[in-house]
Every structure is written in C-alpha cells, then in structure tokens.
C-alpha cells in the first residue's frame, strides 16, 4: 500500500494530547483512555523547567531508538547507560557522551542520581531487571512483552500493586493517535457490535543479526531461542492482542493454535509461523496469524463489526452499509434478480454461492496525513506511539503519577501470548488460568 505518509508534528506530549482533541473538550476521550488523564496541558506547564534523570539498561538497536526519542524530549535527560555488550555501549556513549556508563545494571540501580530506568533488553531479563529496579526505588519503563513466564508476569504485577513507583511497558499503540481515535469510533458504535477480530503480522526476514563470533550467537540472536524469548507471540502478537482486548473490552478465555518452523530451518527454536484462535466468552474470536517468510499481507489489526470494519494499523475503516449504497439502483435490481435465479437452484440455498469481496469505500480514521507503520522494521516505526509513551513516562518520573491501565494491558497481553505458545506446544485448547486473572477487564 502506498499510503505511507508523514505528518510533520511536534513530538511533545502536549501537542499529541492537543491533536487528540483534549483541549477542545476531551472528556469522552479521557473516559476511554484513562492513561492519558495525567497529561493535561496544565501538567505540561508545571513540569516545564524540570527534567527526569533517565538511565538506560540495554543500548542495542531498540535501546538506541528509545535513546534518540528521549534525547528529543525536553523534560528528560539521559544520565546513565548500561550494557554488557561493549560495541553497543560504545555506540550509546557516542550519542550521550556525558552519561555515566555501567556494565552491571545493579550498579546503575544503586545510583541515587537516577529517577527512572528504561529497560530495552532481551525478554528473559525483563522480569529480574524490572523487579530489582522497582525495589531500588526507580521508576521503570520496560520494553514489551512483560516477561518470559506467567509466574514472572504475576510477580511484576504484584510488585506494581505494592510500589508507589511508576511502571510502564511499551504498549505504544495506547499512545498512537489513530488507534485512540479508532477505538473511540469502535466504542461509539460506528462499526456496530464486534463480531470478530483478525490480526496478522507478515514479514520476510529471518530475524537474525550478524554475530561477530559463534559464542555470541545466543546473546545477539536471543529472539530465536526459547530460553530467552517467546518468539513471534511476545515479539509481535503482544501488541496486537492488547489492541483486541482494548477494542473488545474483554479478555479471551481460551486459545487454540498451531506453530512451526516452516521456512527458517537454521537451528532456531522458536516458531517462524503461528496461527491461533482466541475465544471470548461471548463467542467472538480473535484470529491471529504471523509468518516471517512472506510479507505480502503486511501487518494489520482488524476489528470486524456487523456494521463496518476498522483497520487500525493502516488507519482506515469501511462501512458495510456504504458498500451496499455504492451500487446503483439498477445494479442492485440485477443482483436481486440474479440472487433469486440462483437461489431457486434446487441443490442448495443462496448460501452456496461464494461472496467475493465487494468494493468498499475507505474512510480515514484521522483527518489529514498520518504515519502508517508498514510493520517491517524490527526496531520500531516512526509515529507509532513510541515517542509519546516515552515522553509520558519521563513526565511520570517527575510527577510520580502512575499510568492507568498500562501495566494491566501489558500483563494481559503477555499472558495471552504465553498461553498461545502453551496451546501450540501442548496441541490443546488452553483456558486462561483462574490464578492469573486480575481485577481489570472481564473474561
């Protein structure tokens, strides 16, 4: 799709909130997106002269992406960097020459000069680092997914309930303008009742990174091994399952699925192809598919309603009624006569005839030009909400105000991913365990 456009906007959180219509009376907006409640223009004014002192744990590709975003934030400064891989640390030091460097994150956490830490490390390190950082009295921003195991997720969730520190996970779609407005439209009934959710993420990339020496294979290509990663589910699906729950305002109660190494048979352990069906208690399903050996279909988070379809990733929606109206009267008459003729075939009713895709009029969720993420970058995409969530975290480091719903959304999304992997591994239907349910969304 050639709709990839760039909107030149101010990167500040204030402008973001303004774009969302907060200033022109966004009460309804804040009711549906409570995590934005703290970011009023008044708060932005209050912290204008303050800076959050941020330490970076993990300065690899995603860490560098986050660092560049934080450097552009007025109310933050990077004061410390930590990485165990010297080339990454060197690269980060070049970007932030005044920051103190560490090779042991525990030493970084001991520093009293750091308000918050941004953790951009492999998945298996998320839980220990997050828990220790909270224990050390730091505000924490951690990349998704929440953790490698359900036990770790629960431990983080419980630690968060007890701490007065801020905890963010990189659920950047919660700060993506087109997702927020799209959700408002869904919840206002624009596409009717949600009857299905269909998410997919297709890439054609082996997920490998060059390894300077063989002993570093697992350290650098950690995404490919179960010991460090949960594969496609936590790396890609976690964002999309979060969106599904957000749209549905419910959590699926069970999942079935299948996964394989279909193409990249290069010694990796994690699947390169997954297909899952998550079921809500009301019968609605999430169909999830991901494949990293064909990128034709790209990435999409599609919410299907009985009155329309919301393609959140590309920021477009389609209405069922509009599709019907587009045909002229005489074409509709011809269609109706045709339907009657075919329906009279004694072998079957009208349902036997295939309904090929009709022509739908696309409507943009946002007015004007906006950024569409093609989903191909492993690091991150411009204007996908990452900058805004980082800015929100830095602001929260100053105000100390917890971000509503962010941890809960990350917790549930991660658990759904891990349950999906469990369903694939055990080749059975897996239900959401009672002991891991939290008082947030209904099941």
């Amino acid at each position, binding site marked *: 799709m050639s709709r990839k456009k760039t909107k030149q906007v101010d990167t500040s959180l204030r402008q973001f909130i303004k774009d969302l219509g907060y200033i022109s009376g966004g009460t309804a907006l804040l009711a549906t997106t409570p995590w934005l409640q703290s970011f009023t223009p008044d708060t932005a004014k209050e912290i204008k002269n303050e800076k959050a002192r941020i330490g970076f744990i993990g300065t690899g590709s995603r860490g560098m992406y986050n660092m560049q975003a934080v450097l552009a934030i007025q109310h933050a400064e990077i004061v410390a960097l930590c990485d165990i891989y010297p080339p990454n640390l060197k690269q980060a030091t070049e970007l932030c020459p005044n920051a103190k460097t560490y090779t042991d994150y525990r030493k970084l956490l001991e520093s009293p000069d750091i308000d918050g830490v941004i953790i951009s490390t492999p998945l298996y390190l998320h839980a220990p680092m997050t828990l220790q950082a909270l224990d050390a009295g730091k505000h924490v921003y951690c990349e998704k997914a929440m953790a490698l195991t359900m036990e770790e997720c629960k431990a983080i969730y419980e630690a968060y309930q007890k701490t007065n520190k801020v905890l963010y996970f990189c659920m950047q779609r919660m700060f993506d303008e087109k997702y927020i407005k799209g959700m408002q439209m869904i919840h206002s009934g624009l596409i009717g009742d949600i009857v299905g959710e269909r998410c997919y993420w297709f890439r054609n990339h082996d997920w490998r990174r060059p390894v300077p020496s063989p002993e570093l294979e697992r350290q650098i290509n950690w995404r490919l091994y179960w010991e460090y990663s949960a594969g496609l589910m936590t790396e890609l699906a976690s964002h999309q399952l979060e969106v599904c729950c957000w749209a549905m305002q419910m959590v699926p109660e069970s999942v079935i699925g299948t996964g394989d190494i279909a193409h990249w048979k290069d010694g990796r352990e994690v699947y390169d192809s997954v297909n899952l069906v998550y079921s809500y208690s009301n019968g609605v399903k999430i169909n999830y598919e991901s494949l990293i050996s064909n990128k034709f279909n790209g990435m999409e988070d599609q919410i299907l309603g009985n009155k329309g379809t919301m393609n959140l990733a590309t920021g477009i929606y389609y209405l069922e009624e509009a599709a019907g*109206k587009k045909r*002229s*009267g*005489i*074409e*509709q*008459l*011809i269609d109706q006569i045709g339907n009657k003729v075919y329906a009279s075939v004694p072998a079957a009713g009208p349902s036997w005839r295939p309904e090929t895709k009709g022509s739908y009029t696309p409507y943009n969720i946002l007015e004007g030009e906006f950024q569409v993420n093609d989903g191909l970058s492993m690091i991150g995409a411009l204007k996908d909400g990452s900058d805004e969530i980082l800015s929100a975290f830095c602001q929260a480091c100053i105000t100390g105000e917890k971000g509503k719903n962010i941890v809960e959304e990350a917790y549930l999304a991660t658990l759904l991913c891990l349950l999906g992997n469990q369903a694939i591994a055990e080749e059975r239907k897996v239900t959401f365990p009672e002991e891991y349910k939290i008082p947030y969304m209904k099941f």
Partner: protein
Amino acid sequence: MKDIVISAKRVKKEATILLACFTMAFIINVASIVIYKTSWLEIFTQIGYVIIITLTLYLVVAFIRLIIYLIYRLTKR
C-alpha cells in the same frame, strides 16, 4: 444479386418496437432508483445499462416474433 428492400412501414414498426423497449428499460431504471432509494442522477449515469436492457428486450421480442411467425407459417400450410 437480389436487393433487400426494407419498406418504410417496416422501419417504422421496428423503430416503434425499439422505442417501446427503451421506454420499458427506462421505466426499470426509474423503478430501481425509487425502490433502492438511489440518486436520480442515475437516470443519466446508468444509461449504459438502459441501452443494454433495451437491446436485450428487443432481441427477446424479436425471438418471440420469430416463433409467432414460424407457427403462423406452419399453420398456414
């Protein structure tokens, strides 16, 4: 080679039938606009469909006339 002569009466008759078919097709289009509550601009924009329906009706009428003619010829013998 024998010349085929089409009389003025015949031309007038065929033109009348064609006009009747066009009127019928036009009415179908108007009826569709009313039934499906679409734009009245379709009177002009859907003229292609009207012409196709006109020709289809004309062919159907011609076929019926041919059958009637053949039956008439057979019963006359």
